[in-house]
């Protein structure tokens, strides 16, 4: 089971958090901080599994993460009880593949996803995630299927007029004008990093 999915940037700012187990808000923030602390001090060329850490479920969980340009994608996965230890790492490897699916799906839905997409469309990212993971279990791994479902739902939203109708958009466009420059160039070029050897999925 996946206990939590966290996405934060290189500075530890959360971009998406999804807990599949209840934690109070302050605890959630503490988990994010600790996880960031653990993950950020690791080199890029070391393995993507992390043991230890004390917050979610004590030592009974593993962190599996990937670092894409400015973003860390972290999954907290429980390792099963010791007598069933056989199973935990299988979990690990499957999640690993699955993460790639998630990131690639994001990429498809946002057309070259970058951090800004995640910043401004947190809700959309959640909706995509919901098609991939449900209640801590992997729902779908077929990327085309995920993208199709997400698009169908977006189309439905559009047909309903969306959340903010045209006038609101116009206003926000105006507001947008006198903002300090938004860094548009943080595009993650290498988001399509192929996972070596864990290919056919």
């Amino acid at each position, binding site marked *: 089971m996946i206990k939590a999915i966290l996405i934060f940037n290189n500075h530890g700012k959360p971009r998406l958090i999804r807990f599949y187990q209840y934690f109070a808000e302050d605890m959630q923030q503490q988990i994010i901080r600790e996880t960031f602390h653990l993950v950020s001090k690791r080199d890029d060329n070391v393995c993507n599994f992390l043991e230890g850490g004390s917050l979610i479920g004590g030592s009974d969980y593993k962190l599996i993460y990937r670092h894409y340009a400015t973003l860390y994608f972290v999954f907290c996965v429980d390792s099963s009880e010791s007598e069933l230890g056989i199973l935990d790492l299988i979990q690990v490897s499957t999640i690993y593949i699955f993460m790639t699916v998630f990131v690639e799906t994001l990429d498809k839905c946002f057309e070259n996803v970058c951090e800004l997409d995640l910043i401004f469309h947190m809700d959309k990212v959640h909706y995509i995630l919901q098609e991939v993971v449900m209640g801590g279990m992997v729902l779908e791994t077929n990327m085309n299927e995920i993208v199709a479902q997400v698009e169908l739902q977006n189309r439905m*939203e559009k047909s309903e007029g969306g959340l903010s109708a045209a006038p609101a958009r116009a206003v926000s466009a105006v507001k947008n004008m006198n903002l300090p420059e938004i860094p548009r160039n943080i595009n993650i070029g290498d988001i399509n990093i192929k996972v070596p050897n864990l290919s056919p999925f």
Partner: protein
Amino acid sequence: MALKMVKGSIDRIFDKNLQDLVRGVRSHREDEAKYISSCIDEIKQELKQDNIAVKANAVCKLTYLQMLGYDISWAAFNIVEVMSSSKFTYKRIGYLAASQCFHDGTDVIMLTTNQIRKDLSSPNQYDTGVALTGLSCFVTPDLARDLANDIMTLMSHTKPYIRKKAVLIMYKVFLKYPESLRPAFPRLKEKLDDPDPGVQSAAVNVICELARRNPRNYLSLAPLFFKLMTSSTNNWVLIKIIKLFGALTPLEPRLGKKLIEPLTNLIHSTSAMSLLYECVNTVIAVLISLSSGMPNHSASIQLCVQKLRILIEDSDQNLKYLGLLAMSKILKTHPKSVQSHKDLVLQCLDDKDESIRLRALDLLYGMVSKKNLMEIVKKLMVHVDKAEGTTYRDELLTKIIDICSQSNYQYITNFEWYISILVELTRLEGTRHGHLIASQMLDVAVRVKAIRGFAVVQMATLLDNTTLLAGSGQHKSICEVLYAAAWICGEFSEHLEDPVHTLEAMLRPKVATLPGHIQAIYIQNAAKLFAAVLNGQQGTPDCQTMQESSQLLIDRLPLFVQSADLEVQERASCILQLVKFIQKLQHKEVEVGEEVTALFAGELNPVAPKAQKKVPVPDGLDLDAWINEPPSESESEDEKPVAVFAEEELRHARPHHTEVDEKELARRREARKQEQANNPFYIKASPTSQKGYQDSTGVEHIPVVQIDLSVPLKVPGMSTSDKYLKLEEERRQRERKERGKKEKKKKKKREKRSGMGRRHDSGPESEEDIAPAHMVDIVTEEMPENALSSDDDEKDPNDPYRALDVDLDKPLADSEKLPVRAHRPTNILKSPADDGEVQEVPKEPKKKSKKEKRDKEEERKKSKEEKQRRKHHHEARKGPEGGPPTGEPIQSSYNAELEPALPTAAPVEASDPDFWLSSTLLSSKSQETTEATPGPIPEKAADVGPGSEPENTKSSKHKKKKQKKDKEKEEKKRKKQHGHSGDREGEESVQNGTLEEEPLPPMSNYSLLAENSYVKMVCDIQGNLQNGSQVVVSIIFENKSTSFLKSMEFNVLDSLNSKLQRPEGSGPHDGLTVPFQLPPGVSNEARFIFSVQSIVMPQRLKGTLTFIVKADDSSTHEKLDFKLHFTCSSYLITTPCYSDTFAKLLESADLKGTSVRLQEVSLPFHHLLAKICFHHHFSVVERIDSCASLYSRSIQGHHVCLLVKYAHQTVTIDAKCDESSLLGNVLEEIKKTFSQS
């Protein structure tokens, strides 16, 4: 209204949307909190508006703020409002917010039940999908209970998108509402065969997750999964299944054997690393389960290890990591095959990645042997020195200790070396594991007698070394070592070279900076040392040393008397008084050495850590009972004065201690010695009363105690472990030479060794050649007498998965039905006529119906359930809007007995795990399969009398009990609603009638087929529902002889109409091998499938069983002829039918009728019905007094309807069927049944 709308949209222009909020937060970096609080105020305003779009926007922003750590639970009600919007856009926002912040404690959750139910049944699949997704995050026990049935219905939704979500969420429902597992499981199982891969994978996912926690309950699914594994191409599903098998194999070794081959094939063929990895993992699990006494699978192990090596050598760090992880699993059972890769592991220790180093460390644990322990530890010590970062260093430290101390110090040949290692480890700065080192030192010193001398010397050096003291301020942990050092020096002071010096070291003023508990130990052991000094000096003319040391104590102890730590203070003042007293005696030149030593006399034995727990509670002792009357609440007020009084008395009592008479003292000492003997680390206390111990003798003639060091080398100063490595090598070489020369001497030595050490017989043979440097006696730990041998680890009672540990094969009881809202129109009666809808039936467990036809009692129960259901419907109808009647959950639409057969397309054999497993293992397993025969029977051969097998008896017993309970309930209800029962069918009357009737006699459908002096065959013939032209014959072979029966071959002479199904490639006259052998007295069941073309006529087939009787000295070939009788009844299958469908059937013109009359039947009517139902596979549709209608269906779909009337010992059966010859034959058979009895 219109104006309001306009106003609303104008307002919205000025609302921020999510993007604006994000932008705002980003542009207010300095005063983010302030900005957000102003935003929250705005949001609060927005939430107050009526416009749902505004609210949804506000909730959307709240979701963002929640991510930043703001509590949004105050808006829970607004979230519910947004959830209930009819627009998908808003609904989605609402559910997202709910899934982020709702939890079990959110009270508005209970308001959502109806809304969620509405969304679940929404015609828009995405409404349903969103509701399911949201629910998966915040499902509570209440929601799970109320919605379980709705979700279960969704599992058969037409859209795979909904199906897969519904299947997946069931796991959450199970966790929150474990009662739903059993009713839902059959449906879940069906989903394994879903045409949509997504649904299939979800079902696999859920079952894997369930099986992970309670694998035993899912063993019966193994054949199904095996089929999936060999047929599926979806890697994801494959991985899950393979993973599941990994959990199952430890429970069923036969499964493992079956798996090895396909798995190895997969390993060879797959290109996906993940799959390869999972396969290797499961193969490892299989090998572990097979590791005992099975044919050698070294090829598979080699393959695994070889593949893993490739992974570890890969440049990808992740693969390296996983490879090491898997390697450590092989290590547990096949250490040798891993040990050959030691180079690789050691190499990984140098990896830059900490995760990998840690994994490699884990592996090292299992790689050590007596030969290489020193070498490996040396390498680790180098790493300890190099390691940067305390966490990794601490990890190394614990690993070193783990490695050395594993399995009772099995691999340590030289304990001097180990002590030196421990001493070296104390030099680590900032380690957290001082306590661990200390406990190792204590453990070794207490348990390895021969090492004590060496240990004491080392510990004395440690005590003398001030660096540890100096560090005590910052690195608290490492000074724990001093605790051990002080204790060892004190306790084994006879080994000390210079006790006075050590005594001095222990009383340095700096000691006062140590933590209290260590100071206390220091003082206590200073006293011990003092005793040793006194004792040592006794007999020598010069008593200056003694006086000096007493003076030393008197000088230094006052510092500790002032200590803030109570323990230290108390001990110091006690000992100070004692020493003062002794000094007085010394001045009088009285010998006190012996007496003072007697204070600390007694040998310490190590006690097993669990010893205390294992002491059995004596009979008659109730630990929970109050010893005194429990204090009443009013007493609390009285307590104060009592306490004061007690305190006063204590104060008075103290001086009296000195006057306690000597006998009493001796007795106490004795008791204390006894107590100490059981406690290895007991710190010997010296009560103040010892002061009064005056039995002193002269101080002269103090004998000099010889310090007996068994250590060959005395190492002055701090030891270094490295030289032991060299020494050890030299020693081994020497020994090897010696061994070559003097065989005899070695033998002697060995004998001696085995006399002393109890543990050296462990370890592989090659290592036994390495003799330990010391004749080490590792004292085994003490256990209390008659200790309980149970070694079970207590399970956590709060484990949520425990509740899911239920037997899934047991039939479902009434009380287990999922609660269903009564007004839901799901209760359309299903009957065999509308087969197509069977899939839609919410929750009828197949297992149940299968078992139900097993015997008549079940039948009764069934109708009872039916009755209950109807009752509920009546009640529901009465009630306003169908609110559930209070108290009891309403029974669901009892869609009644689904067809008994499995809906799977799997052949009969495949659906039965034991048969499936045994079919591959023809040899040597018969015993086991016999035990397992109850397995196959519930699957197909449903009608076995309770007497014939244990499981059945048990279950029927269980049922009887339940029935009794139900009876009472039932009776009450009956009275209540008798008036309403008439409008539907008179079934209640059946029920009422049955209740009073006596139990039914046991019945068995197995009839004797043939018998001779060797073997007895009984058989049962059943139609196969999945295949209209198949009949399954289950034959139980019983070995009646005292010899072994083997090579049994079953053959039947086919007729035109009926043929035995033989495996492909065999000729039409070949026999079938019975897939087991029979030891004497054992019986086992085998199944054979026959294909029949026409089922309207009974058939007789001639057959032969040939077998070899194997006696001790000879074996003979024997045969047994039999005639297999396919009656028409055996083509019938118990199928439930509802009265309205039944009436329709009878009205239709295509049924032809006939009737038969049975004279002089003396059975009670319900027995008669039971017999017909049981032997001829009918089910009662309804019964009124002594008149009943019965229904059954043939495997080819013929309807058979009976109307049975009973009057004056005469039974009239009017029957209708669409095939008259079939009907005629069935009636003949019924007639025969009754004429026989």
